[in-house]
């Protein structure tokens, strides 16, 4: 009896310890970013593009990178979303299910998920050279969409799979087709999970530096079209950290703080938006 009580207590301590360690390291990251970045954060930083000598510590801001990152991440997520939804639905047992093709697709996606993002960047770069394209917003969006696809599809697929077969049967029994059932019933029921999938992918997209290193270029200007090169927050952090000037390094931390705020704001905003529909989810 005592041994089992001890087990219970020890296991609880382990769980709390693990959770605490994770939470603490996340808070440490955010803390350091804010501690080092906040002093350098001012209005100019988020409203101006870099002026001459910005990277030597002179005036300006990183509006170019903020706008660039928003364009890139929203563009890539918007592109990846419909594709992911289609694939995720196709992988359900109502469609391809447990066929070898379905299983092979799932396996491929898991492998792609593990591929380092620099490989996506290198791949994108190769294709661009082949097509005679220049580094541009469009190329960045395409590469980021590719990067986001595996995580979005797999997370969506799991969320959709969790929808009970009873709900599907209720819809089928009314004389609905598979398509109607999937789109109007299953997707609604799986909405919280689908949203999480999109946000996971968005987070991966907006935070990635390596895949867009070669594909988007970097510029101090705001992009005027899809074919212009574009700046981004992760690369702004990377370049500013790489300078020997303390002030500019501080600005790198400030840029990272802005990136965190953008991700947080997107996540909150989309959850608020979706709450309107989520209240109908059957628990």
């Amino acid at each position, binding site marked *: 009896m005592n041994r089992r009580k001890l087990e219970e207590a020890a296991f609880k301590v382990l769980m709390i310890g693990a959770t605490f360690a994770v939470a603490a390291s996340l808070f440490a990251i955010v803390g350091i970013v804010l501690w080092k970045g906040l002093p350098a954060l001012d209005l100019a930083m988020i409203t101006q593009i870099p002026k001459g000598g910005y990277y030597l510590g002179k005036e300006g801001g990183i509006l170019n990178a903020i706008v660039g990152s928003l364009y890139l991440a929203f563009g890539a997520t918007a592109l990846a979303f419909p594709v992911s939804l289609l694939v995720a639905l196709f992988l359900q047992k109502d469609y391809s*299910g447990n066929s070898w093709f379905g299983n092979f697709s799932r396996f491929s996606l898991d492998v792609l998920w593990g591929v380092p993002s620099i490989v996506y960047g290198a791949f994108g770069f190769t294709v661009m050279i082949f097509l005679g394209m220049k580094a541009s917003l469009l190329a960045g969006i395409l590469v980021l969409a590719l990067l986001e696809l595996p995580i979005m599809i797999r997370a969506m697929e799991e969320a959709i799979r969790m929808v009970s077969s009873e709900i599907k049967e209720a819809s089928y*029994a*009314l*004389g609905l087709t598979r398509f109607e059932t999937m789109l109007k*019933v299953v997707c609604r029921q799986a909405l919280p999970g689908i949203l999480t999938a999109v946000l996971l992918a968005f987070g991966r997209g907006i935070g990635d530096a390596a895949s867009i290193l070669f594909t988007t270029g970097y510029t101090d200007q705001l992009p005027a079209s899809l074919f212009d090169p574009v700046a981004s927050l992760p690369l702004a952090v990377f370049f500013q950290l790489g300078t020997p000037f303390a002030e500019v390094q501080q600005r790198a931390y400030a840029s990272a703080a802005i990136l965190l705020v953008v991700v947080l704001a997107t996540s909150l905003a989309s959850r608020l938006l979706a709450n309107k529909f989520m*209240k*109908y989810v*059957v628990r």
Partner: protein
Amino acid sequence: MSEQKMQTQIQIQDLNVHYESGHILKDISVDIPEKQLTVIMGPSGCGKTTLLRCMNRLVDLTEGAKVSGKVLFDGMDVFSPKSDVTDLRKRIGMLAQRPCPLPMSIYNNVAYGPRVHGLKDRKKLQKIVEDCLKTVGLWDEVKDRLDMPASSLSLGQQQRLCLARSIAVDPEVILCDEPTSALDPISSQRIEKKLLELKKRYTVVVVTHNLRQAKRLADYVIFLYMGRLVEHGPAEKIFSNPKEEKTREYLNGKFS
């Protein structure tokens, strides 16, 4: 009622169903009378639900299910490649074992079927929703909160909502798979009462392993045991004077 008057709604001929787990239904041949309440009874695992799911082809959703024989609905073989399964399921509604509201509002749960089947007129939709909810005796309880999530209702109310949802697409048959097994006694009673009312307009088929419920509801009885059809006939005959020994044993509670 006299047997001569009975019109057949669904005709089942030599129906055999195999699942991966085994031979579930064996050589079932029986007619389901129109606008009456037919009860399919028998012990758990005897194939009642499978027989029901053959009538609206929900059995298609079971992986590895093999069906042979015929189910004729209005003379049309429902398993023939020419039959339109969505049309079939629109004409043969279903009430599941557990209440299963769709992830939408109370109003939309009922309006969903007609809307998908092409009804766009708001006024007509509203009328259908109101009529169906009145038919199942839910209107007064929900008329002020039609846009609340359906899952906010109690289980008993949810089951009546599901019944309203299935009659909203104007079916000819309603199949019920142990429709009260998840409900409290009062809610069960309400559902039973509604089913007895509904049989005036629809052909109703109820699966149950509750003998007393079968006696309360049935006009016509089908008794299954281990995947075989043991006996079928008008309720009064089966309950008062069964021909088969197995039926007698079941009615006397030797097994259940």
